[in-house]
């Protein structure tokens, strides 16, 4: 060892505990002297630690496909001017999602919409006993930091506003409603961004 230079092969063998005695001491001294060898040694130790736990196990193709299906291309801006509501695009419908994506803890379904930089998350809960058949519509405007909004629930067949309310400061709102088709109009009150008027055009409850 003293008659030749220390190589990467020597360093790896040393890290792996395959060199002992004088040979190991010579390699150690060379590593201490030579920054390039020291870098090899540090990386080899890091790789050794990382591989000790084995490779990360594979995930089933079904799970991969479900995660890949989350992607939707960004919506093109549909707002024409401030007087026109931006149409919120449906991004997620738990009724159409693979079983493993669904939340098994709720009785109902979830819908996710987006318009511009704003998301509208809705959860439609089936009628509870004694509720007279009314569904519960729980909503959340995101991001919460600019989410205070006036929300109108509009009967799609008559165009009549059946509920009008203001969200909490965190963008949360809840209403009870009969089964049917609705539109949801949302006016953001605390945002400087466009659009400030959003609309979910097709909302099926029930």
């Amino acid at each position, binding site marked *: 060892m003293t008659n030749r230079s220390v190589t*990467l092969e020597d360093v790896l063998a040393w890290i792996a505990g395959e060199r002992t005695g004088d040979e190991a001491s010579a390699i150690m001294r060379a590593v201490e002297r030579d920054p390039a060898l020291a870098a090899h040694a540090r990386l080899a130790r890091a790789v*050794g630690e990382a591989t000790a736990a084995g490779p990360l*196990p594979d995930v089933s193709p079904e799970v*991969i496909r*479900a995660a890949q299906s989350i992607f939707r291309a960004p919506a093109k801006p549909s707002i024409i001017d401030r007087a026109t509501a931006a149409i919120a695009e449906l991004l997620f419908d738990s009724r159409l999602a693979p079983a493993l994506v669904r939340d098994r803890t709720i009785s109902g379904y979830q819908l996710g919409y987006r318009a511009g930089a704003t998301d509208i998350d809705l959860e439609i809960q089936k009628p509870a006993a004694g509720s007279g058949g009314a569904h519960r519509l729980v909503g959340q405007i995101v991001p919460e930091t600019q989410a205070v909004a006036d929300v109108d629930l509009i009967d799609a067949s008559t165009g009549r506003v059946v509920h009008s309310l203001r969200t909490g400061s965190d963008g949360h709102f809840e209403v009870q409603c009969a089964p049917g088709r609705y539109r949801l109009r949302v006016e953001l009150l605390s945002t400087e961004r466009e659009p400030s008027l959003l609309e979910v055009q097709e909302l099926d409850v029930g």
Partner: protein
Amino acid sequence: MAKRSELPSQRRMERPISDDSLIRRCLAGEASAWNELVEKYARLVHAIGRNQGLPSTEADDLVQVVFLKLWRRLSTIREESKLSSWLITTTRREAWRLRSGARVAYSSSLRLEEGLESGPPATEAVDPAESERWERRALVDQALRTLGDPCASLLRALFSDQTEGKYDEIARSLGMKIGSIGPTRARCFAKLETILRDLGLEA
């Protein structure tokens, strides 16, 4: 002259694509970039979930929740932080929710910042050293997959097996001569170093 077996130096390797580039392409609407991100990190998310004590089916759910959050956060992650760190922290937090029996309503999981409001207690907070270990493990795993076999199998075997007589076993299982294992390991490791540096892991 005896025919040489396939050497790692003769294999053509693809340069890994950076997370920044993948995120940029996702934001431009390229579904293939998103597919690559999922392929790249789903194993890590799942493994952390399993490591946190989740059964396999719940770890499957965890993958969906974490990638949904990622999709919703892509633009801000690009500006704020390294993707792998964000994924590890978010995965630990969501795994904690599932493990502790917290209700993970889908609508709640859609909320972008709720993890900050009601995350794990201090004792369950993400340890930076552990986060770093996961990050390194994911990088090395990815680098070895990029490197491919026989190099990857050889390096895994040599680094993980500290027993005497490992050379005999490795030579037998990989069909190599014992005398060529040391030099081949060095050539393979040099290639791995290049990939790891491309991926951002510095010695």
